[in-house]
């Protein structure tokens, strides 16, 4: 079973590390903790037992509580095999940044790196279009071709 725990943004790995250390030899059924790059402010805990958030092992700095209920395994499978940048993105596509300092901004694809890992973007709302290079997993396709 997979459960989601909220953390302070930027502290995901630290919270995961402390919980992983705490659950060892505790008898709690946590078997893994997943910190997907694209899921800011959350970590996913795989456990054979319900998470008792009152248990001291989960009382760690920057932990902000848990999400009620389980997450189906099928929903987290995508995180396990992060796709290289979607082949559907092309020069001129409109994308939204889903992580990093420009999170939430829309941008136009200027160039796609040969490795298909890096994408050069131009932020649409910026007064001066400055090219920004990001990783393929930091963007989400909004519109395949610009009008």
């Amino acid at each position, binding site marked *: 079973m997979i459960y989601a725990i909220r953390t302070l943004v930027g502290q995901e790995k630290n919270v995961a590390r402390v919980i*992983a250390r705490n659950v060892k030899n505790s008898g709690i059924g946590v078997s*893994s903790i997943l910190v997907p790059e694209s899921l800011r402010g959350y970590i996913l805990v795989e456990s054979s037992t319900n998470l008792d958030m009152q248990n001291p092992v989960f009382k760690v700095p920057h932990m902000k509580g848990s999400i009620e209920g389980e997450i189906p395994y099928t929903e987290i499978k995508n995180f396990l095999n992060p796709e290289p940048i979607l082949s559907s993105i092309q020069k001129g596509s409109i994308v939204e940044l889903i992580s990093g300092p420009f999170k939430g901004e829309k941008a136009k694809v200027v160039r796609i790196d040969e490795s298909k890992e890096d994408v050069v973007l131009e932020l649409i709302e910026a007064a001066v279009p400055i090219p920004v290079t990001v990783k393929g997993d930091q963007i989400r396709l909004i519109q395949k071709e610009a009008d």
Partner: protein
Amino acid sequence: MVTKACTRCHRIVEGDLCEVCNLATSKNWSGFLIIVDPEKSHIARDLKIQEAGEYALRVR
């Protein structure tokens, strides 16, 4: 210290070499996974990870 990940086994290590695979590591990695109990973890089974520890989901 910059953490790096092995390009083959995806273990997170602090040096330039993965001592398990004897391969150079990369600082270009993303996604983070801690396997606590490889025998009970469905995720570990899916990713064919047999040892507890810290792993990257993606390494370039």
